[in-house]
């Protein structure tokens, strides 16, 4: 077996003594770990523990207060082309004014200056992204007329269209009904397998996503840690993380899930 045939494990995120300060307040510190490329990584912690701060740091929107953070070997602000971001609510107020296809095209051309029509190649790329999230049939509709799950698909397509190496999702299941939650989890699993994209997912409710997570960054007592998901799904750790007694149980199929301990 030659060396080139060995699986190459690249580093997606490298934290070296990183700390986060926002509004003059220390949010978390002592982040020193590397996240290999190719996984689906959970970002967990109670409200106010700094999950969004961590996302913003990876996105290059907030500098590290100390230490060094590298995204695919580059400073976050230089690695923007390699990251796609799916916010919790994509169309905040402009949902009435644009269609799904417009949102996806903006993901490709929105940071370019000067007026210009999208090229045929760009429209084809947008079409591929819409097809990948099974949203081709809703692409011509106004965002405001789409359901939460459909809007989430459009937002994912808008992030994927620029072919990122890292996809960051902020609470992708928030305010979705059970069926839409299931559909989005299945979609993420499929996209991960097909596109070999690393995913970083902020989630409050771990249960629906547990089957697809393989590791987690967790924010505990003002510190950021990184561990394989099987080590995180632990009653003692989760109890400390969430501040209420948590128990890890298993379904009949052997899938773990967390629940409030009695």
């Amino acid at each position, binding site marked *: 077996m030659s060396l080139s045939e060995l699986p190459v494990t690249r580093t997606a995120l490298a934290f070296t003594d990183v700390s986060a300060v926002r509004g003059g307040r220390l949010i978390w510190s002592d982040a020193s770990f590397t996240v290999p490329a190719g996984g689906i990584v959970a970002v967990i912690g109670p409200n106010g523990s700094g999950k969004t701060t961590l996302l913003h740091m990876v996105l290059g929107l907030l500098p590290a207060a100390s230490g060094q953070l590298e995204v695919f070997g580059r400073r976050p602000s230089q690695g923007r082309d390699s990251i796609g971001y799916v*916010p919790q609510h*994509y169309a905040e*107020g402009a949902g009435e004014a644009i269609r799904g296809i417009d949102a996806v095209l903006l*993901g490709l051309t*929105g*940071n370019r200056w000067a007026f210009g029509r999208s090229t045929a190649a760009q429209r084809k790329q947008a079409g591929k992204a819409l097809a990948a999230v099974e949203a081709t049939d809703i692409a011509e509709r106004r965002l405001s*007329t789409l359901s939460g799950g459909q809007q989430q698909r459009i937002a994912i397509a808008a*992030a994927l269209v620029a072919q990122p190496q890292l996809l960051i999702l902020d609470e992708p299941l928030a305010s979705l009904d059970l*069926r839409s939650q299931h559909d989005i989890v299945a979609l993420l699993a499929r996209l991960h397998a097909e596109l070999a994209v690393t995913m970083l997912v902020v989630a409050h409710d771990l249960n629906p996503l547990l089957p697809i997570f393989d590791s987690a960054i967790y924010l505990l007592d003002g510190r950021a840690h990184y561990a394989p998901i099987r080590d995180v799904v632990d009653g003692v750790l989760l109890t400390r993380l969430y501040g209420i007694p948590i128990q890890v149980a298993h379904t009949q199929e052997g899938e773990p899930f967390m629940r409030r301990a009695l």
Partner: protein
Amino acid sequence: MTVHVVALGYQPNWWPILKSGFMGNALIGGTIVALAAGLIGYFVVVRQSAFAAHALAHLGLPGATGAVLLGVPVVVGLGVFCVGGSLVIGLLGKRAADREVVTGTVLAMAIGLGLFFNSLATKSSSTMTNVLFGDLLAISDGQLVSFAILLVVLGLSVGIIYRPLLFSSVNAVVAEAKGVPVRVLSIAFMALLGLSVTMAVQAVGTLLLFALVVTPAATAIMLTPRPVLAMVISTTVSLGAVWLGLCASAMFNLPPSFPIVTIACAIWSIVWVSNRRRVAMWQKSISASPTVTSSTRQAAATSGN
């Protein structure tokens, strides 16, 4: 002496009136203002900045009365106050929640100052009326030149920042994560809005500006979700309102602002009503198909799924 309760009479000589010199200036000036209003109006609606546009229009009041007081051209006073105010709102109103309060405070201060300046000046009450309701028929050649320059600046600027501005209007954080300078664009947009308002105030006045800037754009967005087409429709509605309004003004001897506003609002009302019908029919067809509701989700969650 006869008393006319309604002084609305048809003027058979309206065609010569339309072809006269002051009407020529009114038509050209109105056309430029309509183009600018329709263009910036689209982004005002998409960015939900209608209140800011409304407040900036009222900054024209202290601007114009202050200019009369100091003896400088009215357009200078308008420009300083409208663009200055837009920058204050842009800089202080970073978050949407703050912006409402900042805008309202600037608005109140502006009207107070306008009243104060007006009380100091002895013969500016006609300026006051002109600023409040506009005077398209008194547009001078000098104003036309300044309008044309402002329109070119606005057109070029929007042409350059169009895509990043739309991107940051749809989702600011996503745009910022892609390297779009969201803060700079936000302030640039407010400055462009200030420029457009400076122009439009001279045509339709502070009180009626909304109908020329926001109403046609809102109409266009109801008609189409395609951004470029919406901008074309928005400027077309503004243009139509100004042209037809000036004709009506010549035909019935009306102050032009009134028919202009009436036409813009009438078009909006018609589109709004037909749009509501369409949405209601669409919702009916949606509710007919079964979906998983939040109550079923609750039930599933409590059963320990």
